[in-house]
């Protein structure tokens, strides 16, 4: 269980980074970022087979695409903590002349990012393209993609879902951050996704479930998902998370989707998150 404990320690630091980045920038998206901290920490520190350094084409290694680009704080933190760029650079988030744009982009050459995202619904298509490229190259490595649940209201997601099943893109693992919240309220209130597992199954995907805020489950389900690749179906993990997880006053509400905590709230939040790897 030391592996789980290690991941939890890293995730705690990632959550501190998120709160501090958003607080410093006085803008950004803490809610979804905090909810996905356990997943992204596990993906980068346990699941993916990654090379040292960064190559855009990702040949000979697993690749990850973030479709819901607004949760850039969690990804930037995990990328920095994984060694893609200096941890100190997290302090430039959303500032002018920074590689850490509000939404992730290749434009400033930030290592670890392979496509811009932010305008929703596009990442899955890009991930499929990358997976097809690996197939053409005979590269056995996998492609991962994270998408939001509100994002599933974009039609392009379902175009991509049709395509991946039709073309048997089975070197692809898509995870849906199923936190049930979006900007204007809960997904049920705004535009109900109804029976999500049945939808994905009907589209021809292999459907897995995960508790995205239980590190043991995150590790286990990601391992399971990897074992389910190469069997003719794309794999989707429906990951239940709580928006704002780890900071009590941010949890479970859409209100912290896209606002920054003030100085006092930041202090309260950081008191709940152990500094394990050293703040940037």
């Amino acid at each position, binding site marked *: 269980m030391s592996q789980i404990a290690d991941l939890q320690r890293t995730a705690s630091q990632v959550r501190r980074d998120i709160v501090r980045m958003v607080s410093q920038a006085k803008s950004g998206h803490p809610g979804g970022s905090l909810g996905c901290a356990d997943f992204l920490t596990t993906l980068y520190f346990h699941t993916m087979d990654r090379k040292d350094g960064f190559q*855009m084409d990702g*040949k000979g290694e697993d690749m990850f695409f973030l479709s819901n680009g607004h949760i850039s704080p969690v990804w930037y933190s995990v990328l920095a903590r994984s060694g893609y760029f200096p941890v100190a650079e997290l302090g430039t988030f959303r500032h002018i002349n920074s590689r850490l744009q509000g939404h992730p982009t290749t*434009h400033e050459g930030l290592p670890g990012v392979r496509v811009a995202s932010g305008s929703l619904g*596009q990442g899955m*298509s890009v991930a499929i*393209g990358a997976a097809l490229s690996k197939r053409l*190259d005979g590269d056995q490595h996998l492609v991962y993609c994270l998408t939001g649940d509100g994002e599933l209201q974009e039609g392009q997601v379902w*175009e991509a879902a*049709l395509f991946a099943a039709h073309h048997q893109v089975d070197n692809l693992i898509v995870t849906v951050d199923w936190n049930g919240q979006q900007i204007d309220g809960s997904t049920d209130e705004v535009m109900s996704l109804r029976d999500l597992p049945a939808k994905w199954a009907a589209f021809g995907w292999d459907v897995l479930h995960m508790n995205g805020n239980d590190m043991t489950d995150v590790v286990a389900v990601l391992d399971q998902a990897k074992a389910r690749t190469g069997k003719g179906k794309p794999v989707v993990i429906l990951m239940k998370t709580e928006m704002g997880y780890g900071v009590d006053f941010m949890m479970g509400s859409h209100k912290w989707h896209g606002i920054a905590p003030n100085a006092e709230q930041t202090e309260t939040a950081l008191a709940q998150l152990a500094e394990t790897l050293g703040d940037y």
Partner: protein
Amino acid sequence: METQTQTDTLFGRFAVTGKQATRDGFGLGLSAVGATHPHAVALCADLLGSLKMDDFVKQWPERFFQTGISEANMMGIAAGLATGGKIPFTGTFANFSTGRVYDQIRQSIAYSHKNVKICASHAGLTLGEDGATHQILEDIGLMKMLPGMTVINPCDANQTKAATIAIADHHGPVYLRFGRPGWPVFIPADEPFVIGKALPIKRGEAVSIFATGHLVWQAMEAVKTLEAQGISCELINIHTIKPLDEAAIIESVTRTGCAVSCEEHNRLGGLGDSIAQTLARHRPAPQEYVAVDDSFGESGKPEELLVKYGLAPQDIVQAVHRAIKRKG
């Protein structure tokens, strides 16, 4: 016969050798690229026959991806394939290659610097009978506004083939625009295609006519009339609208003193506006537009539509007279 001889004299090596659609040139170019570029891949959104991509699919089925009627997804997949080091060529109609998927191109391809070739057929009015829903006249404007996007609108089948081959070796996103109808072929098959380099069709002294796409042929027809009237015309083919060969435009207009732009596109945002901007910044001179006057198209035969919407040779002749008159 007399006309043919006259054309040969006027346009030198640019003599008509037959009739072929520019989309046929694309299909031939794509197969040529397939043979020389193992990383070239093709995608199509349910329009294989219209885009003339059949031969590529037959020769390299593993390098072709049918996306069905989902253009947004196709653009994203192309971006992903490019990320993995492939050279994707997407194929669908110009309308569905641009306006329909603008944000996908903007974010996943242009902003992300992806090496995707967006190949668009059935552009402009000459699509004909299908009408305005499919006759996009805004695509050049849409695409040229994207930073880093190369925009090419070849004028005949040979040039389209050459352009298709050329863009495979150009690293970066490209919009390649071509059309549906059979069209005179007059660019020699061995004419080199250089992205961003204007192609002089004829030298002259009284006016600089800058034409792109199908309108190059219309301009050649107009030049025959104008020369018979004793007006010495310079005709330059601007196949690459971005990056624009500003030096060639400035050099020509410096000699002639006026310009006429010809394009199968809305007057707003097309080649004419790019030329006007160049002239305004570097060499102010009178300019007349031959373009669709800020309107949608309609159903009809291509030649009927070109007349009705002011893109016929006589429209170019009149525009030249106006431009010369304005020189003062």
